[in-house]
């Protein structure tokens, strides 16, 4: 049963859930919403499973019309959303009445908004997930990895909570937060020159426009790896790899499963959630953190849901 009709979309508007797991040894990437934190809050607002399929809208250009009365939730970036011309701020559930149009215009704060529906949007499970990976032709509305397109119909099976909710201000992620991004130090850290280690954690990095769901390039002082060439090995989410040109690349959800560039380490999930909301040209800093501390912080954060 169709509940919403897509009136406008872009190749950057994708159905996503927490990602595809248990198949990475077959070369299948992880996928999933880049800002897992905002995605989880969108689902939380509706009482959904935190991993239920949502729509990830990057930068805007998306619009839906309700075919019947709906209750939806919006979290993440402020992409200038409005309902029939009235501004709709994120971090809340809201009613969209039959015939009303929800539209996303342009990024005002952050880069990615998450739209959730009761019980999650319907889509076939492909290799255990609904996440859209265009390159691998997996997931999405038809299971073939296509981005959401104008004319497509969206449905969901859950029933809405009676009460509309708003996320308390103190729980909302601060997208203007300029504190450094935490990076768990990896095994090759000692193979970079001393000067490069200093630069990695003391200089300002600029997000390149060469950025997609596979990775984001950081522009700044070139880093020098002095170790032996590496044999390809598994790549974790958030790995910060340094190719021969010395410009680090943060590897994201749609990264290749194995690779042979040396790594500084990997950003923490909380750092990745923040990075996913940064636009090209944004300035970031990195801060080393040990695995145990990062783990405790993550477990602590997850208790909020």
């Amino acid at each position: 049963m169709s509940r919403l009709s897509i009136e406008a979309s872009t190749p950057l508007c994708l159905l996503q859930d927490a990602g595809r797991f248990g198949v990475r040894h077959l070369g299948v990437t992880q996928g999933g919403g880049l800002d897992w934190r905002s995605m989880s809050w969108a689902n939380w607002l509706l009482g959904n499973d935190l991993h239920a399929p949502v729509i990830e809208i990057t930068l805007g250009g998306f619009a839906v019309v309700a075919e019947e009365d709906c209750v939806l939730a919006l979290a993440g970036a402020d992409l200038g959303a409005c309902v029939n011309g009235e501004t709709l701020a994120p971090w809340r559930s809201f009613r969209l009445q039959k015939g009303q149009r929800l539209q996303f215009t342009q990024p005002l704060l952050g880069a990615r908004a998450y739209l959730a529906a009761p019980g999650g949007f319907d889509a076939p499970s492909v290799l255990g997930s609904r996440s859209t990976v265009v390159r691998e032709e997996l997931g999405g509305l038809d299971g073939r990895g296509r981005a959401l397109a104008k004319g497509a119909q969206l449905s969901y099976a859950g029933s809405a909570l009676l009460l509309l909710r708003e996320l308390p201000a103190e729980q909302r992620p601060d997208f203007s937060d300029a504190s450094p991004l935490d990076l768990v130090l990896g095994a090759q850290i000692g193979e970079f020159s001393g000067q490069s280690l200093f630069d990695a954690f003391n200089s300002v990095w600029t997000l390149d426009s060469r950025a997609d769901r596979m990775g984001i390039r950081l522009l700044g002082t070139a880093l020098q790896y002095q170790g032996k060439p590496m044999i390809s090995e598994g790549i974790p989410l958030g790995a910060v790899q340094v190719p021969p040109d010395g410009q680090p690349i943060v590897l994201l959800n749609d990264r290749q499963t194995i690779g042979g560039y040396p790594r500084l380490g990997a950003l923490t999930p909380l750092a990745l959630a923040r990075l996913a909301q940064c636009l090209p040209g944004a300035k970031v800093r990195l801060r080393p953190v040990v695995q145990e501390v990062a783990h405790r912080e993550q477990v602590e954060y997850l208790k909020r849901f």
Partner: protein
Amino acid sequence: MKLRVEVVALDCLMVRLFDEISEANMPWMLAASENLRAAFGEHLIDLVPSYTTLMVHYDLIVLNPAQARELIAQALIDLSPNTRTGGQCHVLPVWYDLSVGPELSLLSQRSGLAVEEVIRRHSGREYQVFALGFAPGFAFMGLVEEVLAAPRLNTPRKKVAAGSVGIAERQTAAYPVVSPGGWNLIGRTPAKLFDRERDGYSLMQPGDTVRFEAVSHAEFIHLGGDDTPLEAQV
């Protein structure tokens, strides 16, 4: 073998077993894989094997890094190589032809061998699947004879046909789906390498062995192969 466990991310540890790529690694890699899967059970999110390493991604809600290290240590005590022929042996039919494998002539020139001899040598050997990566079902296999080894193309092709069989250095592989690629192409297989309807999805799994079998154009077509030349696909 000197075993090391390294930090790679908040919820991932790298088990490093070897420093060099070798066919002799495989029985150990398979045994370690099996033990790690058993030790972590449902708390294992993914285990990513590569040539010399196994990356363990575990459930951070259940395990802290120290507990994960402890599980790894226990899993790998008294590790003995898995010499059972656990992996499957696949025979992949290949139509070796210049129209779908343009680098046959390059490999022939480099090696000083006739094209027929290049084909004979590539198909006359049993290869191991070292790892899957690059794309779903893309199996890195080796090792091809030294004389057939060739570096990747300077400029990767924007589009390589599904089923294309190639060589890069001493490795060989077949592309499961159309993708960009820089390997030296020598032929095409009609085999479906990745199929979401198949149990296990990927035809080849790490630890399997593979032999390529030269087939005629007629057989290739009979087996469902697509003989569209590379240039015509662009």
